[in-house]
């Protein structure tokens, strides 16, 4: 550690440690498969696609993996024409 290190604010290592713990918890639980959030994302989109003709460009997915809580935010624009189309089929 350099001389200046003695005067520096608390190190960044604790932040690194916390970030890694959260990330690895998510990665390990998925065993090389997609994790729960990715599964939910895929299944929700699949169900939606059964009912309406979804245009991929009208779907926005946001995801934030947290320590205690994660959020999955799926935003789908449903044009009425798409609903009508699915009704006919």
């Amino acid at each position: 550690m350099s001389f200046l290190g003695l005067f520096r604010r608390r190190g960044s290592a604790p932040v690194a440690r916390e970030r890694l713990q959260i990330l690895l918890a998510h990665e390990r639980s998925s065993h090389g498969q997609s994790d729960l959030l990715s599964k939910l994302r895929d299944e929700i989109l699949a169900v939606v696609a059964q009912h309406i003709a979804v245009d991929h460009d009208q779907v926005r997915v946001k995801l934030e993996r947290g320590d205690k809580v994660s959020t999955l935010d799926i935003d789908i624009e449903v044009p009425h024409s798409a609903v009508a189309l699915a009704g006919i089929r």
Partner: protein
Amino acid sequence: MNKVIVVTSGKGGVGKTTTTAALGAALAATGQSVVVVDFDVGLRNLDLVMGAERRVVYDLINVVQGVAKLPQALIRDKRIDTLSLLPASQTRDKDALTEDGVARVIKELRTKFDWVICDSPAGIERGATLAMRFADTAIIVTNPEVSSVRDSDRIIGLLDSKTELAEKGERVEKHILITRYDPARAARGEMLNINDVLDILSLPLLGIIPESEEVLRASNVGTPVTLNDPKSAAAQAYRDAAARLRGQDVPMIVPADRKGLLDKLFGRRAA
């Protein structure tokens, strides 16, 4: 004008990912739109260095395979809104990255961004050759150390033969970026000198990034060093390199031996 840049080296651990994040942030801070693309399939890290690791929804392979559209896979940086990340996949098979698929993605990125910066995996295999394949410009990240210089030379050979531009008989524009430069060791003659490196590789110098604690701290917190420690010598060096990429003529700063000075003032400490 939009440009595809590959950040490459052959050798691992020389600072490619750090450089991709820092240059990406420095270019985006000027208001130009930038996407950084992680080509290190199976070992992604750019998301971590950029602090976006918890927000990955889709990745490069999802886009290549058509599972997701490009806009869905792009992660917008929370600090600079002109900066985006396209993450590599962590789990899937490397062979899923096809040349045609990569060509399509790069072509689409070119229409959306001023700068497309591709973070190459180490090695000279498929991942590395795909990352450089469609580049206009290459940044060869080199440490002033024998094995890094040798590997850079191999990579330069690939840039001159395996890229799309080379196959068309044109040239990829190539720059050397010296990173992890330790002024104290350079002063003691323990490290290859910068002119030696440039003589051997005979390419122009884009910048010299000092070995610095600030870089380590920046990756700990997941913020490119140019944002996390804008006043540091490393941040300044990355900003200057970004300015040179934009065609500006910026005087080259050779990192000074600050630690050496402290050593002299306070007496030498054991290394």
